[in-house]
């Protein structure tokens, strides 16, 4: 019985310590963005890696998401005889919810895992220690550029996701299923408000922070050897994805 209670106590203490370490990592990272943002060239490289190189997967996912929304929306709306509202349904679903969340999940799978692997390998091969022994701040070289790049890239990717998705819905709704093209766009213009676009961008900006935060943190504190990096990468993707969904709920309830 004592052993069991001790085990629970140890687990709870470890959990609290881990939470504290994760929180401190975020605080120091945000502090570094302001005071040690790194060279612009490093930030640009990361924007290219996190943003530009994610473009293909974002466009592909957005197109098919929009097309599925077009199909499902048409099926549902025809039951009420309001298929003219298809544009509104597709646009609001994408702009408010699916654009930020799905683009963040795609970037997590593509770039978040790579960030963890890159920093994790630098950790186990003592490259981070080498930076520290040169009296250089690893946050400035490894963490800040990734944070800034993720904060820049995510809203842009989200915007592209939204536009491509809306045209995906248009392709299916208007071209394949015969919805009136004028109605598709005019209803959308009437219904989508600045508040909707704003909430989507706030979400994608904060998801960018989550992706960089967890990706960098898990790599920075990766365990030993190839197995440690592999575990850190898996944990990074899972934790980031879960956090994105949880934070999405919190933000939606605030911004609604």
């Amino acid at each position, binding site marked *: 019985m004592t052993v069991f209670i001790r085990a629970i106590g140890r687990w709870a203490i470890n959990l609290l310590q881990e939470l504290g370490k994760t929180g401190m990592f975020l605080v120091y990272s945000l502090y570094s963005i302001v005071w040690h943002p790194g060279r612009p060239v490093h930030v640009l490289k990361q924007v290219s890696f996190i943003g530009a190189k994610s473009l293909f997967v974002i466009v592909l996912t957005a197109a098919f998401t929009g097309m599925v929304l077009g199909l499902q929306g048409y099926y549902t709306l025809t039951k009420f005889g309001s298929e003219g509202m298809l544009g509104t349904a597709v646009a609001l679903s994408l702009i408010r919810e699916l654009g930020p969340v799905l683009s963040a999940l795609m970037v997590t799978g593509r770039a978040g895992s790579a960030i963890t692997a890159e920093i994790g390998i630098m950790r186990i*091969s003592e490259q981070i220690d*080498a930076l*520290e022994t040169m009296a*250089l*701040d690893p946050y400035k070289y490894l963490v800040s550029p990734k944070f800034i790049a993720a904060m820049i890239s995510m809203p842009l990717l989200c915007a592209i996701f939204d536009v491509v998705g809306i045209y995906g819905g248009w392709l299916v709704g208007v071209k394949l299923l015969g919805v009136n093209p004028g109605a598709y766009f005019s209803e959308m213009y009437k219904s989508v408000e600045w508040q909707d676009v704003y909430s989507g961008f706030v979400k994608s900006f904060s998801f960018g922070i989550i992706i960089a935060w967890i990706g960098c943190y898990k790599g920075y504190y990766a365990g030993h050897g190839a197995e440690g990096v592999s575990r850190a990468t898996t944990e990074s993707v899972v934790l980031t994805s879960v956090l994105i969904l949880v934070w999405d709920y919190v933000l939606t309830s605030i911004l609604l």
Partner: protein
Amino acid sequence: MIKLVNVHKSFANQTVLNGLNLSIPAGKTTAVIGPSGEGKSVMLKHMIGLLEPDQGDVFVDDRSIVGLRRSQLNTVREKFAMVFQNAALFDSMTVYENVAFPLEEKTNLGPDEVRVRVATALQEVGLRNVDHKYPDELSGGMKKRVGLARALLLEPCIVLFDEPTTGLDPVIRRSIHQLIKETQQKFGFTAVIVSHDIPDIFEVAHYVAMLYHGEILQFGTPEEIQASEHPVVRQFISGSLDGPINSGVV
């Protein structure tokens, strides 16, 4: 110059340093020898603040470095350079970029001056025509030389060497030792070398410290260590299987 006072360090349930006391003389080369897994690298990392002791203190130039903020620690680290066991070169950079990195980040030198200084540093460690190569295209000995060139470029006051010759053939091993000896004499820095290379290390070091079970067992000149009557020191130097050191091999 560097002083470790009653340093204790444990990882999980394993005690690595157990009340270690050591003073490193300034401007001299001190070798730290001892069986594998006794905490020599851990001790080295305490000297530069990469690890903090659970108990005890570490002084650099009479100033405690335990509990310092990152910015304060970086001021202390300006005096240091470290050559890692596996060189710790940045694997996404070429040899040139690796060696130039500290110059570009910490000085205001122009590109031409950086180019000249990098070329000189690489030449001094006996490397030619490797500027454009990546670390994974180099042999172990070449990597260590690049690591050495990178470490010495900013003319540090203290250089820490973590097993600089492990895994190298005897000829390269000797040439690296020679290189360390020559550069130490030339620049006059304080060197701390963690090594297993017996007896080669006795030719390089001014002082030798034997680390065993997390404590310094003996400290003295190479001659004093070689003449030691302590059974652990004797067994380690002779490489004998009989003695108090348990090799772990059955």
